[in-house]
């Protein structure tokens, strides 16, 4: 289980890095999205992998071994929201750049132009 998730995150992040280094803005934003998925999964994983355990502590004496760690779940929610917002903002800038420079190259001009 750990190995599958780790490899999954690695593949996502690796693909993200490759795409971020590409010259077109669409590739860059896709890369950023993939990387942020990988990072969100990574944060989630840092609460360790549990099966079938509730994250919320009820009344009475608490045995931490019987509960999933709720904090990474809270962290990952915040990270998803913030990541989504900033990526959306980047998308707007990307469209603006496309309109003003007539190219979708990240430098704002075609190479050799």
């Amino acid at each position: 289980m750990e190995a599958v998730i780790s490899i999954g995150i690695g593949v996502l992040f690796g693909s993200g890095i490759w795409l971020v280094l590409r010259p077109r803005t669409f590739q860059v934003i896709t890369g950023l999205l993939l990387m942020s998925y990988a990072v969100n999964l990574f944060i989630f994983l840092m609460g360790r992998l549990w099966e079938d355990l509730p994250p919320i502590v009820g009344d009475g004496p608490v045995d931490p071994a019987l509960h999933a760690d709720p904090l990474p779940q809270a962290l990952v929610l915040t990270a998803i929201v913030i990541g989504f917002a900033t990526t959306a903002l980047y998308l707007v800038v990307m469209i603006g750049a496309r309109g003003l420079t007539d190219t979708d190259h990240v430098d704002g001009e075609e190479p050799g132009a």
Partner: protein
Amino acid sequence: MMDWVHHLILLPVLLPLACGAALIPLHMSRHRFKFAVSMGVLLAQVGVALALMVLADTEYWPQGIGVYLAANWAAPFGIALVADRLSALMLLLASVIGIAALLFSLGRWSRVGVHFHSLFQFLLMGINGACLTHDLFNLFVFFEVMLGASYGLVLHGYNVARIRAGMQYIAINLVASLLFLIGLAMIYGTAGTLNMADLAGRVAHLGSDESQLLRVGIAVLAIAFLTKSAMWPLGFWLPTTYSAASPPVAAMFVLMTKVGVYVILRIWLLVFSAESGAAARFGYEALLWGGLLTVGFGSIGMMASEVPGRLAGYAAIVSSGILLSVIGYGQASLVAAGLFYLLGSTMAIAAFMLLIELIERIRTPGSSLLAVTMEAFGIEDAPGEPVGVGIPGSLAFLGLGFAGCAMAIAGIPPLTGFVGKFAMFHALLQPGPAEAGISPVAWIFGGLVIASGMAAIISFMRFGVRTLWAQGAVLPPRLLVSEAAPITILLVLCIAITIAGGPVFAYLGRTSDTLHQPAEYVERVLGATTIPGPQVPAQAGAGQ
């Protein structure tokens, strides 16, 4: 027992948040009203920062560390805000630079795009929050607030140069934020806490595997801060972005590099102090040599810059580099000198950022730079040439202002740069009693600081001679009082902290002493007590 004074710690975050939100629905045409509100809130922030400074420096709080438990949750479970001498100092610096930038924007810059004042306040909120918070995830949130506002501001006055620079700036910062999150997750996964003081207390007791992983986590985290503070080789984005941004925004960005340095200073002195067991002194070498390389890179960059905006950007890089090396050198007396240098260099570079636009007017009397902006933004009623009362002797003011900035940045007496650098040499040449002699690193450090000053002198002189002493038709440009005043304020403050060097250094010395005693932070933050809630009737309580 918690009285109202404690709530002052929260105000630097709440004030700009409320002000920024309140200004959003107001239409742009009421920009004078918006300006008045923003300025009022900024003046209040100066007041709060000064009050916090006094509270931290007197015996009001034990050890000069004030702890505010957000929503009354005990640390490390809730978010703790901590105001100590260093936070108060950063808050004051942020609000002073904010006032200068805001005043400068009154002439025309606040009108070349929408929501300038709101974004400006949100930027300040992020900076203030980052300086106050003592929780790493909360730090991430405040960094994102700061960056989100800065993305908007870098595009303010939308033109092709800004959008090109903005795209790269945003992409780099998004990736850096992702690294920030990876670092956070690793720290939580190994140490089980995100509270800085709690982390500092736990780091010495971790097993070797976990300690190793934790160090990897913090190193990844540090890449995010070092990207902000533009350490070589993470700072290539900086000169392009700074020279493309509008002047008031660029002045605020100078401050943002220093926030990166501040976070490094805080985390490293707290978590990797000499008392933290296996992880003690981790990463100091990397900061030292990285900082020195940054100084070298920045100096070469300054010499190669043709455009004043890039020159100022490289000056900011040099200043970051010197500060990072100061942290990495790991000597308490050097930190105090470094903080003095931080104050002086930030104000001087911010003043220069503002001055650049006024100097450019000599060369291009028309507002050709703005024409594209206006067209793209669809503003018909172009503010164009600023209207209002100009000040006489504008050329003399520009010349004097330029000389002042150049002297302060390069470190020529009698301005702040000189005092800061002199204090650093003094600290370098007087190592503590434990050391046998002056280490070769100290000589390299000192040599590089002098060389960077030399590079600054050469490049500023070249720029000054070419521009201000140029032959031909030099038209005295129209300057507004609101444009000349912020530069004057910043330079006068530079002179003031030089004249009041004794008290300022005493304060910075106490700041550095507190920073070098991480155990006190651990004790204060984790020992902060919550307020007992209202008494719950016994029969209604849960069956605990």
